[in-house]
């Protein structure tokens, strides 16, 4: 039993501090982008790109999604797909 637990912990060994520095760096970059004058479209693309990168890093490494089976990945992706669908279905209402 003890060896199983140890092996499992070893398999999940991620460089958590490395992930932390990435998250911190991207947060600083986001704030810098928000303060820098630039065309609105470029700003939105940059900010959304960085936000989704950070969110994926949290899910993949902190929530160990990278090491889980595919079913959990599918469960996690479902709301994302449905939200895109929701936004597209509501767009005709406002334009």
């Amino acid at each position, binding site marked *: *039993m003890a060896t*199983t*637990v140890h092996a*499992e*912990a070893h398999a*999940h060994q991620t460089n*958590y*501090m490395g*992930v*932390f520095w990435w*998250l*911190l760096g991207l*947060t600083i970059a*986001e*704030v810098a*982008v*928000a*303060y820098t004058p630039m065309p609105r479209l470029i*700003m*939105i693309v940059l*900010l*959304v790109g*960085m*936000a989704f990168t*950070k*969110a994926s890093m*949290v*899910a993949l490494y*902190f*929530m*160990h999604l990278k090491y*889980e*089976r595919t079913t*959990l990945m599918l*469960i*996690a992706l*479902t*709301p*994302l797909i*449905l*939200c895109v669908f*929701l*936004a597209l279905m*509501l*767009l005709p*209402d*406002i334009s």
Partner: protein
Amino acid sequence: MSEAVAMHSAADAAESPLTPESWGKLGMWIFLAADAMSFGGLIVGYALLRHASAQWPNPAHTLGINLTAFMTFLLIVSSVTMVLSLSAIQRGDMKAFKKFLMLTILGGLIFLGCQAYEWTHLITERLPEAGLSFTTHLFATTFFVLTGFHGMHVTGGVIYNSCVLAAVSRGRYGPKHVEIAGLYWHFVDLVWILIFTFVYLI
């Protein structure tokens, strides 16, 4: 009797063919997917109302992003301490586990304090000055519902983590319960990363 005990411990790693991880972990993931839909609905609603509105305030000017950037930093740090407390309890290092989980709880509490300060400041000074009170502009409603819903999740997470800390101290909870609590806490952090971008920066 001994057979039942042996079966129980054998069932610990994979409780059924359906759940190689555990029922608790699968359940938490399904709950988080449903919860993500609630947040998704609120964020999509915010984005569409903003897009449809002729006059929407610039959030960076109205809200101020320095304090919120610090709050984002706090949640990221508390996510790291959560994951470190999990790897500590998996190693069997109970002292480090307690230290890191307490830091996680502390991070959540400071976050809530910052949010209470920010809300007070906004409600009593900034929003009325900018003509954006509840009665005059949709901005106030969407902003407070979205950040309030998230703040309630942080409050829930602080209570949840405190309960886990108490239950582990009494020997009733083990590493797998800490992992499930961690999933919830990281999700709260993940959602804040998105709210910070969509509501404060864009």
